C-alpha cells in the first residue's frame, strides 16, 4: 500500500484517525503501534512478520548491549552481530546476489520490504548509540517497534535518531488545527507526487524509450531534467505525505528536503537534499574517520567517500557511487574556490548544471551508458534539436516551468517576509480552498488505476 492510493486516502487514513482519536490518551501510543502493524500487514502479512522479527532481533541486541555496558568488549558482541545482521538484510533485498537467502526465509515471490533502506539505517544507528552510551532515553519495546514501524515514516523517512524520535513522540500535541496543517502538508505531498512527478515520469519514459542513436541534444537534456525533477518530487512528495499524516497524529517530523534543486551553491544543495540521511552518514561513518586524520586532502577524500556512500545507498550500483563521488568532488572544489564572490543567479545556474551532470550518472543503468548519454547531451549525435524535441518541449513546457517554480522557496519566502496583513489574510483564506481543490484533483488523477505507485527508486 502506498500513501497515494484511494485505499489509503479514503480507507486507511480516515479509519486510523478515527480510531486514534477515539482511544483514551493513555493508550494512544499502543493504538499507533497497532495501526502501524495493520499498515505493515496490509502490505502483506509476510512483511508484518518480517519487520516484527527484524525489530525484535534488533531490540534484543540493544538490550544486550545495555546489559553489558560496563564492559566494552562484551557489549561489542551484540553490536557486531546486530550490525552484520542489519547490513545483511539491507544487501539481501537491495542487491540481486542473495536469492538463496530469500528462499531460506521463504519470502513470497517478488517480496520487497518497503522502506528497508531507512529502517536498517535507523536500527544500526541505535545499536551504535547504545554501544557508545549516547542513548538519551529509555529503550522500550513499544517505542522501539514504533521507531521502526511508524507508518508515516516507514516508506520515505525521515531518518531520525531514536532519541529525537522518542522526544518527538513524547511531545505530541493533537488539535483540530494540527490535523488541518497535517492535511495541508499531506495534500501538498500528494500533489507533488501525482500532479508533477507522475507526469514528469511520462516525459522521462518517452525519452528513455527513444532510439539512443537518433535523439537530439535537447531531447537528452529534457530526459535528464525530467529525471531529476521527477526524483525530487517523488521523494519529497512521499516524504511530505508521511510528515503530513504524522502531523495529524500530533507528531512533528522534520522535513527531508528543503527546496534543494535550485540552490545558489552546490553546498546548499547538498545540505538540503535528503538531509537526515547525509547527517546519518556523517555521524556514524565519516566523522569518526575525520577525527583520526588531520591533513586537509585526506579529510576531503573522506568527504567524497561519504558522498559516494550516499549515492550508493540510492541505487546499490556503480552508478550511484559515481553520482555521489562527483557530487562530493564538486562540493570540495567549490569550497576551495569559495573566496571568489559570485552573483546569486550565476550560482543557481552552475549548481543546477552540476546537479544535472551528476544525475546523468544516477539515472543511468551502467557507467558506459551514462557517459554515452552525456556525450549526446553535448551534441554527440550531431543534432541539437529535432521534431521530437520540439514536440516534447511544447507538450511539457508548462509542467516543467511549474515544477521549477514549485522547487524553489520563492513562495515560502514571500509568505515569511510579507508583513502585510492583507496578504496574510488572503493566503489564509486561499489555503483551505486550494488544499480541498488539490485533494479532489489528485483523487481524479489516480481514479483510473486507483494508486500511483511509481517510486523511481526502491528505497
Amino acid at each position, binding site marked *: 500500500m502506498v500513501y497515494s492510493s484511494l485505499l489509503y486516502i*479514503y480507507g486507511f487514513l480516515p479509519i486510523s484517525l478515527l480510531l486514534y482519536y477515539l482511544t483514551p490518551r493513555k493508550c494512544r501510543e499502543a493504538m499507533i503501534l497497532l495501526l502501524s502493524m495493520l499498515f505493515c500487514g496490509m502490505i502483506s502479512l*509476510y512483511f508484518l512478520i518480517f519487520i516484527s522479527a527484524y525489530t525484535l532481533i534488533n531490540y534484543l541486541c540493544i538490550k544486550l548491549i545495555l546489559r553489558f555496558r560496563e564492559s566494552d568488549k562484551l557489549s561489542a558482541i551484540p553490536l557486531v552481530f546486530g550490525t552484520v545482521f542489519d547490513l545483511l538484510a539491507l544487501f539481501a533485498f537491495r542487491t540481486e546476489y542473495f536469492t538463496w537467502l530469500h528462499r531460506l526465509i521463504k519470502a513470497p515471490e517478488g517480496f520487497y520490504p518497503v522502506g528497508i533502506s531507512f529502517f536498517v539505517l535507523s536500527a544500526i544507528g541505535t545499536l551504535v548509540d547504545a554501544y557508545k552510551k549516547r542513548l538519551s532515553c529509555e529503550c522500550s519495546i513499544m517505542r522501539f517497534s514504533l521507531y521502526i514501524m511508524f507508518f508515516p515514516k516507514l516508506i520515505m523517512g525521515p531518518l531520525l535518531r531514536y532519541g529525537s524520535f522518542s522526544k518527538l513522540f513524547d511531545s505530541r500535541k493533537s488539535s483540530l488545527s494540527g490535523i488541518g496543517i497535517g492535511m495541508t502538508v499531506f495534500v501538498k505531498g500528494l500533489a507533488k507526487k501525482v500532479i508533477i512527478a507522475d507526469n514528469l515520469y511520462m516525459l522521462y519514459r518517452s525519452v528513455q524509450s527513444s532510439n539512443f542513436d537518433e535523439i537530439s541534444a535537447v531531447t537528452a537534456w529534457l530526459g535528464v531534467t525530467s529525471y531529476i525533477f521527477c526524483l525530487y518530487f517523488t521523494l519529497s512528495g512521499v516524504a511530505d505525505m508521511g510528515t503530513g499524516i504524522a502531523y495529524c497524529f500530533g507528531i512533528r517530523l522534520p522535513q527531508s528536503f528543503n527546496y534543494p534543486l535550485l540552490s545558489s551553491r552546490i553546498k546548499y544543495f547538498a545540505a538540503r537534499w535528503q538531509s537526515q540521511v547525509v547527517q546519518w552518514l556523517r555521524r556514524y561513518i565519516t566523522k569518526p574517520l575525520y577525527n583520526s586524520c588531520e591533513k586537509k586532502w585526506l579529510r576531503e577524500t573522506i568527504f567524497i567517500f561519504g558522498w559516494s556512500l550516499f549515492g550508493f545507498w540510492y541505487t546499490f550500483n556503480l552508478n550511484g557511487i559515481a553520482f555521489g563521488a562527483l557530487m562530493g568532488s564538486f562540493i570540495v572544489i567549490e569550497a576551495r574556490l569559495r573566496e571568489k564572490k559570485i552573483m546569486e543567479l550565476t550560482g543557481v545556474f552552475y549548481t543546477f548544471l552540476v546537479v544535472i551532470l551528476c544525475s546523468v550518472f544516477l539515472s543511468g543503468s551502467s557507467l558506459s551508458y551514462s557517459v554515452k548519454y552525456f556525450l549526446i547531451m553535448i551534441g554527440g549525435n550531431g543534432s541539437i534539436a529535432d521534431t521530437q524535441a520540439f514536440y516534447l518541449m511544447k507538450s511539457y513546457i508548462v509542467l516543467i516551468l511549474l515544477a521549477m517554480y514549485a522547487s524553489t522557496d520563492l513562495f515560502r519566502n514571500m509568505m515569511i517576509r510579507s508583513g502585510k496583513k492583507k496578504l496574510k489574510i488572503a493566503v489564509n483564506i486561499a489555503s*483551505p480552498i486550494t488544499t480541498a481543490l488539490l485533494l479532489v484533483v489528485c483523487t*481524479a488523477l489516480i481514479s483510473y488505476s486507483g494508486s500511483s505507485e511509481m517510486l523511481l527508486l526502491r528505497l
Partner: protein
Amino acid sequence: MSKLTKITGRITAIITLSIIAFFFFMTILGKNESFSYAENRRLADVPELSVSGLYDGSDVEKVGNYITDHFAGRKTLLSAQTRLQAELSEQIVNGIYIGKDRLLDAEVSLRTPATVSSDIFNRFAEKYDGTVYFAAIPSSSGVYGDLLQARGISRSDGQQISAFYDFLSSKIRKIDAYNILKMLNENYIYYRTDTKWTTYGAYCVYKTVIQKLGFLPALYDKYSISHITDNFRGNLYRKVLSAQITPDIIDIYNYTDGAAVISCEKTTKSGNTIETELYDFDKLDSSDMYSVFLGDPAPLIKIKTSVKNDKKLLVIKDSYANCFVPFLIQHYSEIAVVSPEDMQKELSEYVNVNDYGQTLFLFGIENLGNRANLENIIERN
C-alpha cells in the same frame, strides 16, 4: 501559532476531512454494480480474503482494485482526469493519445511483438492441405500514427506487420492490408474511439483479399448502406471517457441482389449450438455496440449461403474480422468462422479443417502478440 493560522488549520481540517468522509460513505453506501456500462467491463468483485492471499499481500491489492472500481463518482472523476492530464502533459492519458478528432493507442511499443506467435500459423499451414492466406490488420495507431510522430510509433504497426510476415512460411500467402489502409486514411476507415477499422475500412481490404482468394469483388454501389448508430464509443474511449471526441457511426453493408444467408449456426462457449443471424441488433442497446457484428463472441459460427459453388472457406480470426465476414457470403456456399480466443477446446473439436479448401487468417496486429489466445488452433502434442 497565531490565531489566524489556527483558524485556517481548523477550517482546512474540517473541509478535507469532510471530503474524505464524503467519498468514504458514498463509496460504502453506493450501489454495488458489477458491470460498468461506460467502460464496458466487469468491475472487480468483493474479494474473498484468504490466508495465503493476505500472506503475500495479493488480497489487499484486490481490495484496492475493488475500491477503485466502485469508488463514488468514478465515471466523473475519470473524465476529469482525462481533461486535467491532457493539460498537464502530452495529450496522453492512461496510455491513450487524445487528438483533435480521434483517440489513439499510444503504447503500441509496449505490445508483445506479433512475431512470437508466427510459428503457430506455420505449424497450422504445415498440416493443412488447402491454401492459407493471412491478412494482418494494423490498428488505428498504425494508420494514423503520424499524429504521434514524436513518440516514434508512426511506423511501428507497418514494421510489425512486415516483420511478422517475414517469419511466416512461404506456404502462407500474405496480404498487405497496411498499405491499402494507409493510402486511404483520408476516409472514414477507422473508428475515432476504437482501435479497429470501420466497415468501410473492411470493405477496402475485402476488395484485395477476395481477388487473392480468386473472386471478383462486389462493387461498392451494389450495396445499400445503413447507419445503424451514430453513438458508438469504442475500446479507446472506455479508458479515458473523453467527451471531446465525436462518437462513431456504425455502418452495415447490405447486398440486396446477391446471395443470402440460409443458416447461421453458432457454437457457444459452453458447447451448445444455436441458430443466430449475422447481425445482432439488440447489441445496439448494450455497452458494446460493436458486437452487433456476429453477436456474442463464440468459438465457431457456421454460415451456409445460397451461393451454389461448393466452395468452402475457413476464417480464423479475432474481433477485427467481425465486420469483414458479411462481405464474404457472396462468394462461398459455406463459411466457418473460428475465433481462437473464445475456444475452450482444440480446433479439431470444432471443425475438420481439411473440409475447407481455403483458410483465411484475419487478425489485428495488436492481438497477435497474445500467444496463449492463439495456441488452440494447433494440436498440442
